[in-house]
Every structure is written in structure tokens, then in C-alpha cells.
């Protein structure tokens, strides 16, 4: 495997996983915000 392909593979895997990590942080953030600053439940 040449160096560029290897670098591409590393960038792809790291980036894809990092997106999950970053969005996971956002998920935690939203959960905390919803708990700390709750809105009213809808009537339905």
C-alpha cells in the first residue's frame, strides 16, 4: 500500500470516527440543556 493511500485511509477512518465523537458531545450537551432548562410538555 503506498504512502498516500495509507494516509488517505488514516484520514478517512479518523475523520469518520471523530464526527461521531463530536456529535456525541453535542448529544450530551443537548441532553444536559434539556434537563437543566426544560420546556413545557406538549398537550398531546
Amino acid at each position: 500500500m503506498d504512502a498516500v493511500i495509507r494516509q488517505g485511509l488514516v484520514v478517512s477512518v479518523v475523520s469518520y470516527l471523530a464526527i461521531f465523537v463530536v456529535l456525541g458531545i453535542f448529544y450530551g450537551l443537548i441532553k444536559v440543556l434539556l434537563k437543566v432548562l426544560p420546556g413545557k410538555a406538549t398537550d398531546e
Partner: protein
Amino acid sequence: MSELLSGVKGMADWRVWVMLGVGLTLVWLAVKKEYEPNLLLPMGFGCLLANIPLSSAVHGGFLDVLTRAGISNELFPILIFIGVGAMIDFGPLLQDPEMLFFGAAAQFGIFFTMMLALLVGRIPGVVGIPGLREAAAIGIIGAADGPTSIYVATRFAPQLLAPITVAAYSYMSLVPIIQPPVIRALTTREERMIRMENPEREVSRAVKIIFPIAVTLIAGIVSPMSVALIGSLMFGNLLRESGVTERLSKTAQNELSSLVTILLGITIGSTMSGEQFLTPTTLLIIGLGLIAFVFDTAGGVLFAKFINLFRKKKINPMIGACGISAFPMSARVIQKMAQQEDGSNFIIMHAVGANVAGQVASIIAGGLILALVR
């Protein structure tokens, strides 16, 4: 007299005829088929202006000025993002934050296509994709997000900007044609009929205001290269949600978006010169762009099916496909598909949530690629 005939002489170049045909086709697609008309029409006309021999619109003309003022320095895509942010309601995502992960999963096409472009670029005789930067610029078509594609392509492969932009916007408008067969191939009818409960949760105004600020800070700290993209999107959203800048929010949604879309479209169109556009690389980019959208969709659907292995309450796996950015087209397509199977199944709120998650995820993906690719 020779001055008058010089334009006519220029028509002897076959590439001029082909590019005028491409420009007219884009205008036709916009007018007749209504495929992303707000962008394809200015692009098509810009293409015409740029390919008329000895055109004064380019060669130091106003389109060159606009290219330097708004494309080379990435200003136009950033301004577009302010407008997009002002248009997005993150409410459905905040009500059901699990949808964020579908946004992440459906970025798979970016990286699959990037690797594919790298491999194709290694085939003897294939030119135009010499390294990782060009492959990344092509892969980012899978972000299904025009401004992000333009932003990354401008940095990594400005010579490929025109075909990448054409591919990105064309496939975004073709989402209703691209996604359904991929989804049907990967799901059973029973899966497509899964019903999902709407979260009965009201999101407070405070959360809607804090969310764009916090996301900007977190994304910026994790990936500083994404600050311009995510920051402009979230700034637009803050204008919307603050409740105190209604005039600015409406301006961002309407006048700013419209004005920049006109300038962006006609300027991108003007970069479609025959010498740069009529190459085998363009065809390759068009093909790879389609693969990116297909694998985005597959990534989202398969991730939802994987998650379902561990859940009691199953998720309709079609929701995963909405994780591609293409907002709000993808959510509409999935809702329509759900109703084709069961007329009383409404999954639109979840679909919109995953769709706006895809918008955020695609920008994060762009920022990470900008940071990691050298």
C-alpha cells in the same frame, strides 16, 4: 473589422460549442425540470458568459472580480451559511437528539469516495487526481452540501471547483431519484413500515439560544478549521432563535441568501471554461459524486439497522438516509416513501431531525478534512 470577426473566429473551437451547450443545459434543467433552479440558472448563464469567445465578462471583467472577491477567499459560501443557519429550525433535532448519530453515519460516502478517488487516481493514464487533496475535494461532494463542497474544493483543488460544484448541486436536486432505490435495496417492507413516536417534548427558548453558541465553541475548539463554516451557520441560527433580531434573521434568510446565491451561481458558472471543464476528470468527478450520494444513503440506513439490533423500540431505518445534508429534500423523500408503504405513517419530525443533524455533521466533516489533509 477584424475586431468584429474575432469573436466569430473563436467559434471555430469545438469546446466553445460544447460549453455553450452545457450552459444551456443547466438553464434548461433549472427552468424546465426545476432542479435547484436558484443555483443552476445563474450557473448556466455564467457558463454562457464565460464561454463566449473573448467575453468581456471574464478576462479581467466583472466575473473575474467576483471570483477573486467571493470564491477565491471563500466569502460567498460563508455568507450562504449565515442564510442557511437563519432558515434552519433545530427544534426537531433538539426534541430527539439521538438523530445526531444518523447525521454522522450518513457522511460515510465522503470517505468512501475519497478513498475511491485516490485509488482511481493511481490508475495509469488517469490524470487530475494526483493526491489526497484532490481526492478529498471530490469526496466532499458526499457532504451533500453545496457551500461546504465549494469551501473545501476552493482550498484543496480550485482547478476542480466547477465540476465539483456542478456535481454537488445536481445530485442534491436528484436526491428523490438517487435515495429511494438504495433504501429499497437495503430494507424490507416491514422495516419501511416501522412507526416512530413523536417526542412529546417542548424545547425551551433558552436551549434554542444556547445550542448554536455552544456548538460553535465546541466544534471550534475540537476543529478550529471548522469555525468559519459552523460559526457562520450557527450565527445565522442565533439570529433566528434569539427572538430579538427578527429583521436581521429575515434579511439573512431572504435578501442575503438570494443576493449571494445569484453572485455565487454566476461566478461558479464563469469558472466552467472549456479547457478546464472538458476533461476526463470532469466525467470522473460526476461519476464519483453519484457514488458518494449512494454510499451516504447506504451508510445511514445500515447504521440505523445496526442500532436496531440493540433496541427494543425499533427505528425506521429510512431515517438513517436523512442523515445526508440535502436539507429538506431528503426528509421529504423519506416521509413520502413511508407513506407509500403505510398512508398513516408520519415520520417527518424524525426525518427532519436527522436531516438537520446531517447539515451539522457535513460541516464538521468538512472542517476535519481541512484539518487532517495536508
